[in-house]
């Protein structure tokens, strides 16, 4: 049996799939811990696992950390190039800097066999490199968001490389190799068909969506059972707090009293009154709810995208910022949805798109095809098998040394 340490960023969308594979690893008898720099409620941690939050070590970083977290609210109003700076320069690199010291302590005291770092959580792989611990990276979003930047945008590529190499040098890693990701195994939670990657590099392993993380959110199933109109699930994910009211106002303008039922995952407090055909809950058991839906509206947060196509549902994607635009392009390429950019979203177009998706079967057919590629990718079982094989082969390598 092996000890796996997942290193996760302060963003739930990236933590979520690691909770699912972590639960599967624990079920196979492995020891699993998570390391993060914001508190995570116990209810999210799979039974038998442990979340390490180095509260005392973070005291001196707390002001910086809170500024980084607050800065994320600016994302939706930033342009593409501004978001790149916000992400890499103002988030990923400083988060790694804050994580390194307490993470290295945990690595020394608990001595994991494998460190699993999320793709934007550079400290995981950097610490693993320094300590000589085998490392796997997890990627919850379709890779190649940047495309071939080295050739298509050489100055931006150089800026990226310099920031990462600068971070590495701060922790004594010199040279030209980038060590903030694993070069041996990168587990991607989508299918290569959806990602549009025909010949992935051998260490990129597309396992499709994973599931099974604890989610005990309550839901009024009786009310849902009584619904007779098509059911449209709407989620904005866990970020993007500032634009929630504006987004749902558009939905109300478009669908109040229309022959559909909107099932929305958002805090109901944003409006005093919701139309009768809106079922609104702050937290929902999304995985259980999704099979009962007819279509989904979301901005392109990747866990909702995965839940949607796992159930073969058509999607209206309204990209706002970050990698949403890339995901929206993939949805359109796969033929399983319609994309309308949030900033250009008109009420009339919103209505037309939703009824087109509900009435034209071509989107649903394409979504079911995508579902097949997700199923074939292997999910939790495949991810666990890859991690176990990796841990075993690294152990043999250590023994040979």
């Amino acid at each position, binding site marked *: 049996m092996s000890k796996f340490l997942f290193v996760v960023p302060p963003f739930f969308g990236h933590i979520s799939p690691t909770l699912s594979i972590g639960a599967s690893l624990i079920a196979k008898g492995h020891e699993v811990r998570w390391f993060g720099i914001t508190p995570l409620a116990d209810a999210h941690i799979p039974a038998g696992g442990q979340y390490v939050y180095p509260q005392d070590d973070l005291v001196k970083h707390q002001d910086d950390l809170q500024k980084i977290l607050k800065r994320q609210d600016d994302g939706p109003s930033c*342009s*593409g190039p501004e978001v790149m700076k916000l992400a890499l320069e103002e988030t990923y690199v400083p988060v790694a800097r804050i994580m390194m010291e307490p993470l290295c302590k945990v690595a020394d005291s608990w001595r994991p066999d494998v460190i699993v770092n999320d793709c934007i959580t550079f400290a995981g792989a950097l610490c693993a490199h320094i300590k000589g611990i085998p490392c796997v990276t997890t990627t919850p979003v379709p890779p190649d968001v940047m495309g071939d930047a080295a050739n298509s*945008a*050489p*100055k931006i590529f150089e800026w990226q490389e310099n920031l990462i190499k600068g971070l590495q040098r701060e922790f004594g890693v010199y040279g030209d190799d980038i060590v903030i990701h694993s070069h041996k195994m990168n587990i991607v939670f989508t299918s290569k068909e959806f990602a549009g990657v025909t010949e992935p590099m051998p260490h990129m392993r597309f396992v499709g969506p994973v599931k099974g993380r604890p989610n005990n959110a309550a839901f009024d199933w009786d009310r849902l059972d009584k619904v007779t109109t098509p059911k449209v699930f709407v989620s904005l994910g866990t970020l993007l707090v500032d634009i929630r009211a504006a987004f749902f106002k558009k939905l109300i303008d478009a669908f109040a009293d229309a022959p559909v039922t909107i099932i929305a995952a958002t805090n109901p407090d944003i409006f005093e009154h919701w139309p009768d055909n809106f079922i609104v809950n702050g937290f929902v058991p999304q995985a259980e709810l999704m099979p009962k839906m007819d279509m989904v509206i979301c901005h392109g947060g990747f866990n909702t995208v995965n839940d949607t196509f796992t159930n073969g549902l058509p999607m209206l994607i309204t990209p706002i910022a970050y990698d949403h*635009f890339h995901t929206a392009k993939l949805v359109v390429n796969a033929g399983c949805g319609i994309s309308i*950019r949030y*900033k*250009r979203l008109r009420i009339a177009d919103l209505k037309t798109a939703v009824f087109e998706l509900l009435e034209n079967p071509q989107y649903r057919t394409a979504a079911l095809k995508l579902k097949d590629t997700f199923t074939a990718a292997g999910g939790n079982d495949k991810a666990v098998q890859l991690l176990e094989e990796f841990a075993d082969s690294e152990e043999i390598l250590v023994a040979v040394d």
Partner: protein
Amino acid sequence: MDTVVVLKQFITEVIGEEFVEEMDIDMNSSFTRDLEMDSIEIVSFSEKIKAHYGDQIDFTGWLSNMDLDQLINLNLGMIVEYIDNARN
């Protein structure tokens, strides 16, 4: 026709008339911040430039050599100047 008139027409076609009506587009309008163009819109804007001016203007090549700050600050005036210079 003046380059700026042509480019304003392309902007309108790309982002939609009703969104343009809410904007005061002038030479200082930034493509990212003021016009809020995303990468797909910039690509379709580039295609229109290529279709109109032909191979004499390598707009995409010009853009791809920019760093992030140059892209963030890119405004209509800079594109007009680039096109006018390249055509002379």
